[in-house]
C-alpha cells in the first residue's frame, strides 16, 4: 500500500513539473520557441536599407547601406555614405566574403583571422555578418526561465552549438513571449567568456512578421558605447536578380 502511495506522489509531482514547464514556455518547448523566432527573423530573401552608427570614444559616425540577401547563403551590401565609405561593396557567397573599395579598384577576399576583424570599426565582425544561419539549424535550445525585458514578458533560452563552425558556442537569448522576436542576447565563447551583448528594440510588424528594427551591438572586449544598427526600410521576399550575387557586381 505504501509503495502505491509513493508512486502516486511521484506521478503527481512529475505532472506538476510538466505543467509548470509547459506554462513557462507559453505551452511551447524551447525548440518550438526558437522555431517561431526563426519564422520571424528569417526569410527567403530580403532587401534592407539601414544605417549603422558606431559610438567610439572620440565620437560617433554613421554609415548607410543597402543589403540584398537570399537565405543564409548569399548577401550583397553596398555602402551609400559617408563619402569615404560610399561605393564600398561586400559580397558573401556561402562561406566566402569579398570586399571591393573604389579607392583601390580591387576585389579582395577576406579569409582566416581577418574574418574576426571589426566591420567598418563597428562592434560587428565579418564573422558576425556571415553568421546568419537559422538558430534551429545550429543550436540546441533549453528554456531556462522567464524574465521581463523593457516591460515585456520574455522566455530565456540557453543555446548550445551542435556544430563546430560557429562563431559563438553558447548564446543566451531573451524572446518576447507574445511576439517571438528577440529582445536581448548574450554571446559567449567556448571558455564561457561573454563576448558580445545585443539589445533589440522597436519591434514592428512587417509583412506579418514581428521584427526588431533597431539593434544595439556591444563588443564586450572593446571600449566605446557600441554600434547601433537601424533598419530604415525592409522588404521581404523580393525578386532579386541573380547577377547581384556575383563578383561582377562588385565593380
Amino acid at each position, binding site marked *: 500500500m505504501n509503495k502505491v502511495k509513493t508512486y502516486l506522489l511521484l506521478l503527481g509531482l512529475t505532472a506538476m513539473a510538466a505543467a509548470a514547464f509547459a506554462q513557462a514556455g507559453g505551452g511551447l518547448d524551447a525548440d518550438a520557441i526558437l522555431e517561431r523566432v526563426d519564422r520571424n527573423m528569417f526569410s527567403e530573401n530580403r532587401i534592407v536599407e539601414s544605417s549603422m552608427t*558606431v559610438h*567610439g*570614444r*572620440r565620437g560617433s*559616425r554613421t554609415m548607410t547601406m543597402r543589403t540584398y540577401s537570399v537565405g543564409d547563403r548569399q548577401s550583397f551590401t553596398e555602402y551609400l555614405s559617408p563619402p*569615404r*565609405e560610399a561605393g*564600398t561593396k561586400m559580397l558573401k557567397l556561402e562561406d566566402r566574403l569579398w*570586399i571591393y*573599395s573604389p*579607392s*583601390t*579598384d*580591387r*576585389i*579582395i*577576399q577576406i*579569409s582566416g*583571422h*581577418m574574418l574576426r*576583424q*571589426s*566591420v*567598418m*570599426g*563597428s562592434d560587428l565582425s565579418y564573422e558576425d555578418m556571415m553568421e546568419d544561419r537559422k538558430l534551429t539549424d545550429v543550436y540546441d535550445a533549453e528554456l531556462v526561465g522567464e524574465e521581463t525585458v523593457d516591460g515585456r514578458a520574455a522566455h530565456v533560452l540557453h543555446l548550445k552549438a551542435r556544430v563546430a563552425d560557429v562563431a559563438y558556442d553558447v548564446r543566451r537569448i531573451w524572446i518576447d513571449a507574445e511576439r517571438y522576436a528577440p529582445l536581448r542576447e548574450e554571446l559567449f565563447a567556448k571558455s564561457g567568456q561573454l563576448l558580445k551583448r545585443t539589445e533589440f528594440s522597436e519591434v514592428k510588424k512587417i509583412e506579418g512578421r514581428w521584427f526588431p528594427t533597431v539593434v544595439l551591438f556591444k563588443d564586450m572586449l572593446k571600449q566605446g558605447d557600441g554600434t547601433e544598427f537601424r533598419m530604415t526600410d525592409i522588404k521581404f521576399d523580393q525578386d532579386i536578380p541573380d547577377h547581384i550575387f556575383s*563578383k561582377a557586381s562588385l565593380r
Partner: protein
Amino acid sequence: MIRFLIKGLIRDRSRSLLPVIVVTAGVMLTVAMHAYIKGFMGDSIELNAKFSYGHVKVMTRAYAEEADLIPNDLALVGTAALKEELAEKFPGMVWAPRIRFAGLVDVPDEQGETRAQGPAMGLGLDLLSGDSREIERLDLGRAVVRGSLPEVRGQALLSEVFSRRLNIEPGDSFTLIASDMGGGLAMRNFEVAGTLSFGVEIMDRGTIILDIEDARLALNMADAAGEILGFLPGSFYDDAEARKTADVFNAAYAGDSDEFAPVMKSLSGQGTLGTYVQFADVWANYISLVFVGVMGLVLWNAGLLGGLRRYGEVGVRLAMGEEKGHVYGAMIVESVFIGIAGSVIGTALGLFIAGVIQKYGINIEGLMEGASLMFPTVIRTRITPVSYYIGFIPGLAATVIGTALSGIGIFKRQTARLFKELET
C-alpha cells in the same frame, strides 16, 4: 723626498717597469671591459628605443593605457603644433612622429583579385620630408636587400622574408587593408620600393614600412600620429634625464583632465622596458664589480710579489740603519706612483680601445642568424663618466694594498737574523 723616490723609479727600471706594465694591462682591461659591458647592455636598450620606444614617447593618455593594442583611434591629433611645442620646450632633443598599425597585405593577380595575402605589422615613418633622421636612425639603407628606399609617395618597404612569402617583387603593387583612425575600413594601393632584412625574425616575419604621410592618408590620420618619439642629445639612453624630461612635460598638462591630452613616458616607463633598464644597469654594475674585484686580486698579488722581490734591498737598507717605518713608507709611496702611472696609462689605452669600438662597433651579424629577439647585430662599447676612474680602483688601490701587506714583513724582521742573512 718624493722627487727622490720618483727619480729612483724612473732611473731604476727594474723596480718600476714590470709593475707599471702589469698595472697598465690590468687597468686597460678593466676600463675596456666596463665600457663593453655598458655598451652591450645599452645597445639592446638603444635598439628598442630606435624601433619602438624612443628615449621618451608622447602619446594621448588613452593611447598610453592601451599602447600594446596600437589603438590609432586614440592617436594624437595636431601633431605639427605639438612637435613645435616639444622642440621649443626641449631644445637639443630630436622628435619623430610615428604611426604603428596592423593590417593585411593583399597581392593581386592579373585580374586584380587576391593572389596572396598575409598579416603585416606596419610602421609609418618620416622617410621623405628631407629633414628627418629616421632612415639613419633605423639604418634602413643598410637593411635594403632588393630595390631601394622609397623616393616618392605611394611606395613602401616590405621585409624580405615577407615579400618572398607573398611572391612580390620591387615594382609590384599591393593593397594594404587596415583600420583607419575612425575604426573604419582602410584600403590603399602601394608599390613595393624595396625589401628589407633586419636580421631579427620578429621584424622580418611581416613588416611593412611607409612614409608617414602615406600612412596618414591611408589611415585617415591627417596631422595625427599614434606616437611622437623623442631622442636625447647623444647616442645613449640616460634614464634620469629621460624621466626628468617626462616629468617637466607632464607637469604642464597636470591640470588637464582630457583623456586625449598628451602624456610623455620615458623608455623605462613603458611596458617591461623599465625592468630591463634596471636589470641592465644592475647587471652591468655587477659584472663590472666582479671584474674589478678579479683585477684587484691580480694587481694586489703583483704588488705583493713586487714587495717580496725587494726582500734583499730592504734587508740592506735596514742593515744600513734606515728606520723600518721609513722603508715601509717609502715603498708605499713608490707603489702609489706606480699605481698612478699604470692607472693613467692603462685608462688612456682602455679609453682609446673603447672609443674605437664605440665608433666602429663589432659586427656579430653572423652569430645572430635566426634570432627571434630584438637584439643588435653590431656591438658597441659605451664610455661613461665611470670609465674615467674605474681603472684606478684596481690599479691604484690594489697595488698599494699589495705593497702594504708585503711590507708588513719589514716590521717582523729581526736585526740579528738580518746580519746572519747578510753574512751568507
